[in-house]
């Protein structure tokens, strides 16, 4: 059974300090909120690179395969010559292949983003404060009840304007 704290910060450097403080105190399970992506935060968190590229690759490959397949298969299914061109003529079919690759690739990329970043989310309330979409930065720390105090201190030291208890 874990408890959570939500801390709000008005300044970027305060947030960075808080992150560093939590890391220093070996807190691992915390989420950072920021109105806009900042490199300073990445710098502080050093997160792993996103897995999204896999979705893109697989989607793209499926797409291009399907594109070529549908064109070639239908041509051979009922062979009709037009303009003295080969019945299954791969050269123009490259366009079909390409377009379908882009379509499927792009859609699967978006799909990947949804999967990885867990949107669509059902509820926004837990561990979140509306002001994080406005001007403020924030941290949501999940921890055991006994370390709750320690976490709160760390957050406040770093200059949290407000720290609230979740649940």
């Amino acid at each position, binding site marked *: 059974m874990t408890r959570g704290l939500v801390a709000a910060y008005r300044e970027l450097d305060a947030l960075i300090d808080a992150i560093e403080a939590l890391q220093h105190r070996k807190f691992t399970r915390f989420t950072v909120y920021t109105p806009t992506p900042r490199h300073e935060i990445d710098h502080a968190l050093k997160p792993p690179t996103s897995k999204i590229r896999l979705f893109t690759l697989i989607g793209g490959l499926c797409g291009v395969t399907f594109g070529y397949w549908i064109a070639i298969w239908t041509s051979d299914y*009922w062979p*009709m010559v037009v303009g003295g061109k080969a019945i299954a003529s791969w050269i123009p079919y490259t366009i079909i292949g390409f377009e379908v690759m882009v379509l499927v690739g792009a859609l699967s990329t978006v799909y990947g983003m949804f999967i990885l970043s867990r949107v*669509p989310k*059902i509820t926004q309330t837990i561990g979140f404060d509306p002001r994080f979409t406005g001007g403020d930065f924030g941290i949501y720390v999940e921890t055991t009840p006994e370390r709750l105090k320690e976490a709160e201190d760390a957050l406040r030291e770093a200059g949290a304007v407000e720290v609230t208890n979740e649940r």
Partner: protein
Amino acid sequence: MSQRRSWALASGFFAIAVAALGLSAYSGASSSQGYAPPQPVNFPHPRHVKQLGMNCLYCHYTANRSPDPGLPAVGTCMGCHQVVRGPRQAIQGIADRDTAALNQLLSYAKGTSDQWKPIPWIRIHKLPEYVHFPHFRHVNAGVTCQTCHGPVPEMQRVYQYASLNMGWCVNCHVKGYKLADGLLAAGDTAGARAAANVEPKKARYDCSVCHF
């Protein structure tokens, strides 16, 4: 929660709709297979073909000579029914005449032959005007009537047996017509057995063979 369910529902409906569309398009749901309108004269095919063993070509007399199969003129009917008319008892297990149908016929054939009126049959098997289907070419190729028109000898009221969709035509043209199947459909089991290993007869499937 509710959101997720409603989303699932929405996308589910969408998927079903798309599938249905695809299926209907594929199955040719737009065909009028099974169309069986009442005819001005309720002509009993079973009586004539099955019991009396008349040949299709007796009435549909140009099916082997012309693109049009031909319809019996009133004169053709009256050829027999000048004599064969009115009620009579069942004999030799052949049921009583269908006097109702007979009277329908006679209502068109009152008086002398120059006073007769043609029978306005309701068309059932209808290909669009841009398709050219030469009956005689198919009949001469040995395709039995029942292959396309179904068990007409069994039909008290004729209905459209096949879908008459393009895919239906093309399948036979490409895969070929199996004489055995045709004969079987025509009820000639012996012939079917004999023709068991006759090569399927293919036909040209170029568009300009039927569309021009």
